[in-house]
């Protein structure tokens, strides 16, 4: 049997990847339910689809968390709130 102990899995990271996998799967279902990806021209002035907006939300959230760790001493959990807010904004405006 293959040994995966070198990958050093922990529950938080498992949860993290499961969340991302679930988000992608949800995107697939959404796309199947209403195909086309709802393309539109948002505030960035080029065409984006749902998938692009999800990607921007996730990437932006990563940078928000990094910035949070860098600049504040406040626990990271609060940054998640900011991330959700940001994601909502992205899905509304971009």
């Amino acid at each position: 049997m293959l040994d995966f102990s070198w990958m050093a899995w922990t529950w938080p990271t498992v949860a993290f990847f499961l969340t991302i996998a679930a988000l992608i799967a949800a995107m697939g279902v959404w796309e199947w339910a209403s195909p086309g990806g709802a393309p539109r021209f948002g505030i960035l002035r080029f065409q984006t689809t749902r998938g692009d907006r999800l990607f921007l939300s996730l990437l932006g959230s990563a940078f928000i968390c990094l910035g949070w760790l860098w600049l504040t001493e406040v626990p990271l959990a609060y940054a998640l709130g900011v991330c959700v807010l940001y994601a909502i904004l992205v899905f509304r405006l971009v």
Partner: protein
Amino acid sequence: MNKTFDNRAWFLVLPVLLLVAFSAVIPLMTVVNYSVQDTFGNNEFFWAGTDWFVDTLTSDRFHAALLRNLAFSAVILAIEVPLGILVALAMPKKGVWVSVCLVLMALPLLIPWNVVGTIWQVFGRTDIGLLGRTLASLGLDYNYVQDPVDAWVTLIVMDVWHWTSLVVLLCYAGLVSIPDAYYQAAKIDGASRWAVFRFIQLPKMGRVLLIAVLLRFMDSFMIYTEPFVVTGGGPGNTTTFLSIDLVKMAVGQFDLGPAAAMSLIYFLIILLMSWVFYTVMTNAGTDRANREGAQ
């Protein structure tokens, strides 16, 4: 080309997906796992939370390497892009000389990166190198091993030597696609050389130039081999770029946690830039088409 919508195409993509998942997804997951833990070897790991990220983000060493990398990228872009455009504009348009030029100019692009390093390491040495010896005999105090400024100049000249041809080739590809009729029209209008460049050649080169700038930026941002061979990151730490620092930490000292945290931050920056790259590349064409369609 109008493409058919068919989800069975996934089967054709499957081999690539599996292969790249094996060589990209598993390693990245491992890096994420390492970045939140501490280890003393033997595959025993302890939860460390976000400590490594805080450490990396607030360390002067990381900031300095990042700044050096950005400065390096900025300088080589500022030199390579204008130089590349200049050479591309001056290249012959047809005849056998085109092929000769293309082949000779492409030569540095195909040399192994560590040999590029070796070539310049030898070339710049004051005892045995053509460049170093010439500069020394001109009375210049040039020594890239001990002097940080000389080390930087050597690395920048080396990168210009190595990669300007890429800008030239891309610009040239954009230039030859301009129909002769444009130049004839400009001639009849009595347009100056500058006007021809500004209003005909530059817009037509725009797309390839954008690709060239982004490619050069990305590649210079992850440069490792050439400076590693020439200066090894020295003198001191003055030419230690992100990649060199990361490899030193990861493979040299085997500090899994800090190295993984730094890898992730580095990778996120790259991911952001890749996204910009992709968006620009896919929209540069459609944007123009939209505008032309609207007219």
